[in-house]
Structures are given as structure tokens and as C-alpha cells.
């Protein structure tokens, strides 16, 4: 068996002349919980739809469980659980009906998992899908996705619109899934707290381009923040440093977020002439925001209401 459940090579998709996903080379190792991150419109959903053969790639290819995503066999599909964005279910079905329908379509169906997830979300089989709240729908969807015991779970923004309690239930379910050997989960999310909790691998997509693909620990380790202070006024221009992702100016202080810091970069930071240079720890959320925000120094240019004309 290969070590990657998903592998893409030069995967690209254009809508008209707009390139939404650009030359994506992604590899998802077997057995991990893979967080797929990026801002809105960065191409996450497009990528996931291409992985499932719902959308034709413009260029390149994707292999999922060793098969070409454009022509996934029925066997491969039975091994992939997919929860599309927005928790789709048929409004007119009752919960029990949803289960029976899905059970009849899938080859393997573990009714006890289905029941357990429903119970976890406190859902009775007689309720109509139409009447469910956002979180309850998510629970139903999750139950429908997990019950066939897929070995690869692809969740497109599963936490969309969920309250904290439902979100926590979702994470618990995800952790529970990986108790089985070689179960892989790929999920996209904006909620970095969730990602920090459950993901061990992440990929970061920015405007269709893959910017990072590594373990969460590596990501956190490779992004550093420096606070530089000057006695006089700091240099007016943002320093050019390799790997600089974000700079923030506050009076005499300059805060730099830098990726892939090595000794050379440290030396360069030291040579900026600051009176003090301090490396401060940075949380995942800040790291991510700085990483995906605009490059270089950028302040929101709102006029200062205190300023005298």
C-alpha cells in the first residue's frame, strides 16, 4: 500500500480565465487528520470537489485511494465518506428514512455507529430533516457519512454554522473515527481552535496556491515573531528579509512575523539596528492570520479620530 491516500499532481482548475486552483501538489498521508486551511475563496471546496470527481480538473490529476479521481470506481467510492459543504440532506425525509436510504446504497453500514452519532446529537428517527437546526443537520450528515465506516473521510467545512457545543461533538466524533487503524480524515475549516485541537497535518491554500503542507507542529515551529524596539525612530521602510510574512509598526516598535527563520535571517534581523530584539512566542491563530494576510507591512488606513487637522 502507498503511504498517501490522496495525491495530486499539478491539479488546476479555471473558471473562465480565473484560476481558482493552481498547480496543486498535495499529498495526504494515511492515518492522519489533515486540516485543509485557507481563506474564503482560496479554492478549498473546488479542490475537494475535484478530488471526488464532482468537478473536472482543467489540468493535472488527482489520485484518491490510488484511483484517478475523474473515474472513481464504485469500490473506491464506498471507501470514501464525503460530507459536502452545507450539510446536504433531503429535506422531505425523516431521519430514519435518511438512514435506511443511505444504508441501502452503501455496501457496508454499521447501524450502531449511525445510532451512536444520532444519540450524541440527540436526534430521534422520527424527525423530519426539514425541521432540524444547523447543528442537528450536521449531526445527521455526520451519522450518514460515518456509518458506512469509510477509511477516508473528506469533510468540507463541517463546522460551518455550528454552535460551540455541536462543534465539540463534531470534533469528538472525528477523534473517535481515527481510533480505527489507518483511518484518514481530510477536513477544511476556518476555525483554528478546532484545527489546533484535532489536526496533525495541515495544508494552507492561498488564492489557489499551496503555501504550506506540513505537520501542525512544524508549522508552529517554523513561524516566528520578533519584536524590535528602537530608542529613536525606527527605519521608515519595511526591512526586506527572506521569509517575512507580516510586519506591524507601533510607535518605536516593529513586530515582524517571519517564516523559516534560520541563522542568516536572525543575523539580518539583528543588523537592523534596533536597541532590543526579542523573539516572542506566537499562537497558531496569529501565525495563520499573519501568514495568510497581505505580505509586508500593512495597516488599515483609517483616519485617526484623535488626530488634529
Amino acid at each position, binding site marked *: 500500500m502507498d503511504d498517501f491516500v490522496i495525491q495530486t499532481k499539478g491539479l488546476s482548475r479555471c473558471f473562465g480565465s480565473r484560476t481558482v486552483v493552481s498547480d496543486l501538489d498535495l499529498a495526504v498521508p494515511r492515518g*492522519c487528520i489533515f486540516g485543509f486551511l485557507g481563506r474564503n475563496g482560496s479554492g478549498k471546496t473546488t479542490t475537494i470537489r475535484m478530488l471526488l470527481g464532482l468537478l473536472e480538473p482543467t489540468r493535472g490529476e488527482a489520485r484518491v485511494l490510488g484511483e484517478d479521481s475523474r473515474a472513481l470506481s464504485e469500490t473506491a467510492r464506498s471507501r470514501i465518506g464525503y460530507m459536502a459543504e452545507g450539510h446536504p440532506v433531503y429535506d422531505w425525509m425523516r431521519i430514519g428514512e435518511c438512514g435506511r436510504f443511505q444504508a441501502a446504497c452503501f455496501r457496508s453500514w454499521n447501524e450502531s455507529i449511525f445510532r451512536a452519532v444520532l444519540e450524541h446529537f440527540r436526534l430521534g428517527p422520527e424527525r423530519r430533516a426539514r425541521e432540524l437546526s444547523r447543528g442537528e443537520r450536521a449531526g445527521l450528515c455526520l451519522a450518514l457519512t460515518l456509518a458506512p465506516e469509510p477509511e477516508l473521510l473528506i469533510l468540507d467545512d463541517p463546522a460551518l454554522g455550528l454552535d460551540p457545543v455541536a462543534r465539540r461533538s463534531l470534533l469528538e466524533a472525528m*477523534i473517535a473515527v481515527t*481510533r480505527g487503524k489507518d483511518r484518514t480524515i481530510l477536513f477544511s475549516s476556518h476555525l483554528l481552535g478546532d484545527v489546533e*485541537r*484535532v489536526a496533525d497535518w495541515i495544508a494552507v491554500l492561498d488564492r489557489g496556491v499551496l503555501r504550506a503542507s506540513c505537520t501542525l*507542529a512544524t508549522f508552529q515551529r517554523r513561524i516566528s515573531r520578533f519584536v524590535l524596539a528602537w530608542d529613536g525612530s525606527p527605519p521608515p521602510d519595511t526591512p526586506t528579509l527572506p521569509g517575512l510574512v507580516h510586519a506591524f509598526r507601533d510607535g518605536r516598535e516593529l513586530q515582524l512575523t517571519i517564516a523559516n527563520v534560520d541563522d542568516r535571517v536572525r543575523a539580518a534581523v539583528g543588523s537592523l539596528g534596533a536597541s532590543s530584539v526579542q523573539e516572542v*512566542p506566537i499562537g*497558531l491563530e496569529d501565525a495563520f492570520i499573519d501568514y495568510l494576510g497581505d505580505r509586508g507591512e500593512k495597516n488599515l488606513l483609517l483616519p485617526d479620530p484623535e488626530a488634529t487637522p
Partner: protein
Amino acid sequence: MPLDCRISTGSTTPIYRQLIDQIRLVVLRGRLTPGDRLPSVRSLAQRLVINPNTVARAYGELARDGVIESQQGKGYFVATKRQVYTRAHRRRRLAPLLEALVSEAALLDFSADDVTAALQEKLREYGLEPS
């Protein structure tokens, strides 16, 4: 004995580090004694809703530091205290923390006696009486 851990996301401390710190504290405070069994990686991960690999990594580092030990096929247990690091190594690790303590105390205008008294009180709490 329950292993009562609190994980907070969005902090500057990575989750595995939070776990290490908290387990270490529990052991040092004597709430877990040598020979006590730690929850399995999967059950702790399930309870804390964190990735099992994160738990495994924390356990791994704790084992390397000699705080806990793994017994083949049985799980992780609190280890009898033994030192796995050299004195120089330990000094090096303590130095930045001392630095932080003293600089903060100086900033807040504490006298050396105040600091010493507070430190000794804390040491007693951990069962570390001055000889």
C-alpha cells in the same frame, strides 16, 4: 486517580507542551505517584478532544525526560524519580526561568528577602525543604 488536564486553544503554547507541563505538575505535586498508570493515548485524546498523535508526542517527551515510563503492552506509568539529564543540562534549562523571575521581581520592586521567602514557600509546597 484522574488526570485533570485543561487544554486551551489559541494560546501561544502548543497543545503538546500544555499537556507536558500539566502532567509534570501533577506528578511533582504528588497527585500521581510512581507506579500509577496514566490513561491510554487514545482515551486521553478522546477525553480532551485532541489529536491522539499530540498525546503520544507529549507522552514521548515525558518518557524521555524520565517523568513517565512505558511498559511494553501495558501502557504508561509514572516513573520513579531519577535524573536522566546532566547537572549542566539542568542548569541551562533553569537559567531563563530564574532570569524571568528575578527581572519581574526587580520590576515590581520586591526585595531579595521577599523573593527568597516566596520561593521557599513555594518549594515547601512541592515538598522541597531546604536542607
